[in-house]
C-alpha cells in the first residue's frame, strides 16, 4: 500500500520506460546519468580492508620458507641487538626489510641499530684516544676494536691498532735481538760480557734450528751457527756438551765413509765447541792426522814419478797434517831439489 500523495518509487529497470509515481515518464537523459553513476560506483576501488594473514595450510612451500627466513633473521637481529652487536643486528634487519619491505617495525629497528652504531663509534673513539694519550695501550686497543666492530671501515681506529701492534712486536724483536747477541762476538754498543744483561738464551728453538741445519748437511752454515750459539751462551754447559757430541758423531760417520779430512775437521770442531779437552777426541784427531799424512805421502810418492810439482803439493799437505812425518819431510826435500834441478836445466837449454 502506498501512502497517498507521495510519489511511488520504482526500481529502475535498465531496459524499458520508467515513470514517476505521478505517471510522468523519467527522461532518458536522467536514466543514462543514473546508469553511469552506478557503473562508476561499481568500478570504484573497494575500501581498503586489513589483510588477515592466511592460515599456514593455505600457503605454498616457497611462501612458508620465506616467512620462516624472515622470522629467523628477525630473531637473529633481535639477539644481536640485545647483545650490543649493533653492526650484525643492522645487517639482519636489512635482510628482514628486503623480504618484508612493509615491515615498519623492522625499519624502525634498523634505524635504531644505525643510531646505536653512530653513538658507539663516537664514544669508543673518544675513549680510545683518551686511553692512548694516557699511555694505556691495552685500553686504547680494546676501545678501537669496539669501534671497528661497529664500523669495520673506520680508518682512524685501524691505524691506532696497527701502530700499537707494531710497537708491541718491535719491542719483542728488540728483546730477542738483545738476548741473541748479548754474549756473542764483540761489537760496538753491545753489553760487556758478564754484565747482568748477559743472561743465557733459553730459547731451545734457536739451538734446535742450528742443529738441524748441521744435520741436514749444511756443515759450513751449521757449524757457523752452532759456534755463534756457543759464543752467545758460553756458560750453557749442557748445550755445549750436546752440540759437541752431535758434531763428534758426525765426524765418526764421515770417517766410516772414508772422508777422513771431513772427519778430522769435524773432530776438531767438536773439541773446540766443547770448550774442554776430551782425551779420546784428542787422540782420535791425532790418529786421523797421521792417517791423512800417510795417505798424502803415498799419493805424493806416486805423483813424483811423473809430475814433480803435483808431488810437492801432496807432500806439503802430508807434512801439514803431521809435521813429524819424517818420510814425508825427506821426500818433500827430495822433490824440491829435483824441481830446482829441472828448472836450471830448462833455463840452460832455452835458446838465447
Amino acid at each position, binding site marked *: 500500500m502506498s501512502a497517498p500523495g507521495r510519489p511511488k518509487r520504482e526500481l529502475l529497470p535498465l531496459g524499458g520506460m520508467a515513470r514517476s509515481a505521478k505517471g510522468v515518464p*523519467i527522461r532518458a537523459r536522467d536514466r543514462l*546519468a*543514473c546508469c553511469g*553513476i552506478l557503473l562508476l*560506483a561499481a568500478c*570504484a576501488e573497494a*575500501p581498503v*580492508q586489513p*589483510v*588477515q*594473514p592466511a592460515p599456514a595450510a*593455505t*600457503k*605454498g*612451500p*616457497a611462501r612458508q*620458507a*620465506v616467512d620462516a*627466513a*624472515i622470522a629467523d633473521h628477525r630473531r637473529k637481529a633481535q639477539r644481536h641487538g640485545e647483545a650490543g*652487536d649493533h*653492526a*650484525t643486528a643492522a*645487517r639482519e634487519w*636489512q*635482510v628482514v626489510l*628486503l*623480504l*618484508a619491505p612493509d615491515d615498519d617495525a623492522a625499519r624502525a629497528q634498523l634505524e635504531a641499530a644505525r643510531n646505536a652504531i653512530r653513538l658507539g663509534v663516537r664514544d669508543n673513539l673518544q675513549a680510545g684516544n683518551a686511553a692512548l694519550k694516557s699511555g694505556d695501550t691495552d685500553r686504547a686497543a680494546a676501545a678501537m*676494536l*669496539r669501534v*671497528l*666492530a661497529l664500523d*669495520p671501515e673506520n680508518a682512524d681506529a*685501524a691505524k691506532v*691498532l696497527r701502530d700499537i701492534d707494531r710497537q708491541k*712486536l*718491535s719491542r*719483542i*724483536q*728488540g728483546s*730477542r*735481538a738483545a738476548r*741473541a*747477541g748479548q754474549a*756473542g*762476538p764483540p*761489537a760496538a754498543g753491545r753489553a760487556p760480557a758478564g754484565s747482568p744483561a748477559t743472561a743465557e738464551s733459553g730459547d*731451545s728453538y734457536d739451538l734446535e*734450528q742450528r742443529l*738441524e*741445519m748441521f*744435520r*741436514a*748437511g*749444511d756443515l*759450513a*752454515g751449521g757449524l*757457523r*751457527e752452532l759456534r755463534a750459539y756457543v759464543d752467545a751462551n758460553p756458560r750453557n754447559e749442557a748445550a755445549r756438551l750436546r752440540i759437541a757430541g752431535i758434531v763428534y758423531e758426525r765426524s765418526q760417520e764421515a770417517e766410516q765413509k772414508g772422508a777422513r779430512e771431513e772427519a778430522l775437521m769435524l773432530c776438531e770442531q767438536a773439541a773446540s765447541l766443547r770448550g774442554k779437552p776430551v782425551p779420546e777426541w784428542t787422540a782420535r784427531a791425532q790418529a786421523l792426522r797421521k792417517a791423512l799424512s800417510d795417505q798424502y805421502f803415498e799419493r805424493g810418492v806416486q805423483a813424483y814419478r811423473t809430475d814433480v810439482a803435483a808431488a810437492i803439493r801432496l807432500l806439503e799437505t802430508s807434512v801439514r797434517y803431521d809435521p813429524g812425518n819424517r818420510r814425508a819431510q825427506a821426500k818433500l826435500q827430495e822433490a824440491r831439489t829435483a824441481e830446482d834441478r829441472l828448472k836450471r836445466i830448462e833455463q840452460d837449454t832455452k835458446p838465447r
Partner: protein
Amino acid sequence: MIPQPPRPHRRRSSLLRALAWLLAALLVHGCATPPPRAPAPEAPPAADGGGVLARDDDFAVVLARPGDTLATLAERYLGDARRDWWIAEFNDVTEIRPGQPVVVPLASRNPIGVHGDGFQAVTVLCYHRFGNRASKLTVTPAAFAAQMDYLARNGYHVVPLARLREFLAGKEALPKKSVVITIDDGYRATYDIAFPILKKHGFPATVFLYSDFVGAPDALGFAQMKELVASGLVEIQPHSKTHANLTLRLPDETDAAYRERMRSEVDAPVKLIQERLALPSLAYAYPYGDVNETVVDLLARRGVALGLTVTPGGNGFFAYPYMLRRSMVYGNEDLDSFKARLVTFVRTAGR
C-alpha cells in the same frame, strides 16, 4: 496549444533525482561485501628467472633451486665459487637445499673480521723437517698426516700466504678458522713426506728456502721445487742466504758493512728464486724469527711485502706485516699441543 516553457521546479527535481540515485548507488556499493580475495602475501615470494627474491646493493636473497650449492651460488652471484664461505657464514649453514631462501652478501661487509666479542686471527704454522725419527724440529709423517686431517675435519681453511696479505690490507675477508702453512729451510722431506699429504687435502703451503742450503744432501733440488710449484699448491719464498741471525753483527762490523751483508741476505735468495723458479718474492721468513728495522727497510725496498717471525700467536688484521706471528709445530709434541696453537679468534673483554 501554445507550447509552455519548462518550469524551473521540474529542472530542480531532475537534479535531485540524479543525486538521490548517486547516493543510493554509493550506499549499495558501500554495503556490498567485497569479493573474496586470495590471501595477500607480505612480500611476494616470486623469484625471478635467476631465483632472486629480493636484492639491494648489499644482499641478494635467492630461492635455492635443485642442483644449487654454496659454490654455484657464489659463482653465480659473486663471480667466484671460492667465495662460497661468504654465503655459508652469513646464513650459518654448511649446505643448502632446494626451496631454501639463501642470503648472498654481495660485498664483504667486515673484511677485517672484528666483531663485538673479539677479532679474527690467522695462525701461520711453521714446520721445518719431516722424518721417521721425531725430534723438536722433525715431525713424523704420521703426526703431520694427523694434523692435516684434524684441520680438514674441523672446518679449518688453509689459505695461501698471499691471501693473508690481502686480509692485512683490509681488502679481502678470510673465512673463519683460516690458517697458513709454512715450511722453513727447504728440506727434501718437504717433497718426499709433506707434499703428498698436502696434495691429498688440497692444502696450499709456502716453503721458505735459504739459498746456501741448496745442494746440501738433505736439501730440495730445483727439479723437486719446480714440481712443487707446478702443483699450484706450493710456493717457494726467501729465508735468507746463509741462515745467519740477521740481527747479529760480526766482530767490528761497521754500519755500512752490516747493511751490505744484510742486502746480500735479502737479495741472494730473492734473485735465485726469481731466476730458477720464476717466482716473485712476496714474503720473507727471518732465520730464528729475528729481525730489525734495517732488514725491514731492505725488504720493503725490494718489494717484499710480508716478513715472518716465530713469535707465536694469531695475526689480527692489524698485525704489522713485517713482523707477523708464526707458531712453531714441534715434532715432540702431541695433537693436543698442535690444536692449542690454532688461534683463529681472539675473544676481547666485554663491552
